[in-house]
């Protein structure tokens, strides 16, 4: 029993070390083998070796270096084997044999951070689907197991495993180099990286499916990845922009869920439950955006909007005109009916529900919003404020039918019922 628990303890220590070191090990090995799929397998081999040896022999003084050395040794063996094979093939073909076996590239003085950044860009390569990028990023950079990723996204483990295998194959087939993108490609490629991190965050923040409203572990994972990226790419304002946005949004995690698990919307939240440490960190990140040239990108702008809410001690203190202006800038930069809808909410708060409704009504026919439950939800809210309760009820019911989240559906049906009640009080029949 005692031995068993010691073993288990060693096991958990290996997992903790893996969590801290795995991305670096994969990145360092990928520099040798130039293939992140192979690199990940070699890193996994090193993990297996650690799980076998550390419980018996104790955790080495520098466990990260141990994992890296074992994985690199295996990488070099692999390179030598394939070189020997190539030479054999060449000899068989009566071609001139390779004169000497070249030494595989050995760790040089290039900092590991450069390899980590390469790994980030490859895992988020546009040749992969969004789903594949998310899975691969969590696996290669987050050090999450397939089971953990599956649990976080509420999908079956084999589905995730297959997604990762396919993603690695796609990268190999497309011969994606283990390099950071050329300067002309860089903005688009960085946007892809930021998108993946924010997708992970949002999956945790507003769970699109299932009965749970939020899954904080995914938010924390995305925040960690964002903070890592901020150190790898210190000069790009959109990186601290995204970090600021996530820190501020994450500060509300505790306040977004009511006692029985129901969602609590921003303006109804108990602001004393907001995490002030995360708000301070978010505002500090936003200052870095300003220092790097100002708030001009989509993430910086969204962070600035989130900061308006974070700075307001009560909903009444919210600077809605500023939020409406920021949304206007955002809409010009990334035209989207969803941004327009958010702008309509801000305009409604700043200049009255009628002004907001006029903007929303322009969006009603938009094909992109046909299935989007927040459109009828927002429209219902504005109509209710204008006292048009029958129309509001219809909109809340429509929204309830469209959402895939069970908790949100109940919230919307409650609002529809409230309209019916208010209507009854207004005009008794």
């Amino acid at each position, binding site marked *: 029993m005692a031995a068993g628990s010691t073993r288990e303890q060693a096991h*958990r*220590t290996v*997992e*903790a*070390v893996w*969590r*801290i070191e795995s991305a670096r090990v994969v990145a360092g090995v990928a520099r040798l083998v130039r293939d992140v799929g192979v690199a990940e397998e070699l890193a996994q081999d090193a993990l297996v070796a650690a799980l076998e040896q550390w419980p018996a022999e104790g955790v080495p003084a520098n*466990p990260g270096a141990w994992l890296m050395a074992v994985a690199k040794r295996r990488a070099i063996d692999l390179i030598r084997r394939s070189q020997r094979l190539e030479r054999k093939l060449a000899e068989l073909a009566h071609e001139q044999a390779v004169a000497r076996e070249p030494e595989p590239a050995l760790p040089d003085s290039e900092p590991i*951070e450069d390899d980590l950044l390469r790994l980030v860009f490859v895992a988020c390569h546009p040749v992969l689907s969004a789903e594949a990028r998310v899975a691969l990023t969590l696996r290669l950079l987050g050090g999450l197991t397939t089971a953990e990723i599956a649990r976080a996204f509420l999908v079956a483990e084999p589905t995730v495993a297959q997604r990762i295998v396919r993603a690695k194959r796609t990268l190999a087939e497309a011969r994606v180099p283990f390099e950071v993108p050329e300067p002309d490609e860089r903005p688009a490629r960085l946007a892809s990286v930021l998108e993946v991190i924010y997708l992970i965050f949002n999956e945790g923040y507003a769970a699109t499916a299932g009965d749970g409203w939020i899954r904080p*572990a995914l938010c*924390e994972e995305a*925040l*960690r*990845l*964002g*903070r*890592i990226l901020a*150190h790898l790419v210190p000069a790009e304002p959109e990186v601290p922009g995204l970090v600021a946005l996530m820190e501020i949004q994450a500060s509300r995690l505790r306040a977004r869920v009511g006692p029985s698990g129901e969602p609590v919307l921003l303006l109804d939240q*108990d*602001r*004393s*439950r*907001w995490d*002030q*440490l995360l*708000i*301070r*960190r978010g*505002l500090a990140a936003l200052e870095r955006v300003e220092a790097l040239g100002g708030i001009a990108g989509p993430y910086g702008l969204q962070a600035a909007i989130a900061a308006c809410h*974070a*700075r307001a*001690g009560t909903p009444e203190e919210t600077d809605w005109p500023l939020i409406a202006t920021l949304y206007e800038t955002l809409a010009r930069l990334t035209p989207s009916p969803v941004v327009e809808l958010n702008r309509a909410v801000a305009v409604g708060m700043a200049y009255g529900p009628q002004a907001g409704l006029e903007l929303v009504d322009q969006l009603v026919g938009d094909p992109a919003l046909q299935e989007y439950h927040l459109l009828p939800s927002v429209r219902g809210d504005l109509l209710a404020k204008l006292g048009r309760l029958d129309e509001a009820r219809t909109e809340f019911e429509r929204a309830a039918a469209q959402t895939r989240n069970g908790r949100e559906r109940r919230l919307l049906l409650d609002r529809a019922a409230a309209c019916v009640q208010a209507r009854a009080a207004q005009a008794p029949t």
Partner: protein
Amino acid sequence: MRFMILLKGDPAPGQMPDPELINAMIKYNQELAQAGVLLAAEGLLDSSKGTRVIYSAGRRRIVDGPFTEAKELVAGFYLIQVKSKEEAVEWARRCPVEYAVKDSGMEAVVEVRQVAELEDITTMSEEQRAAEHRLREQISGS
């Protein structure tokens, strides 16, 4: 999960950390930050600049530092966000405290403590919890 890594000890009055120790700590801070786990960190001046308020037998006494039991004192802290206690312990293990004690033969202690969320304190009433939340909001000054 949030953990506080406490550095125990007390430098001699007025003693400033030497460049070697500063370098090692900067490197460690960077590792924590680059790993995306560091939320906050501070170091404290030695206890000769400190004061204690001691309550006993119904009265409060003010006692100025320095304090003698160095091992029980806190010299600095890190606040980190990690996935498990083991991960927190692994980070604590990497803290370069050997530079603080050098070859003095002294022991260096790094303590790992989990941060209590208000929700963890089972003896707290709903009203107390709400009051505490409001207070936290006020002290943050935002």
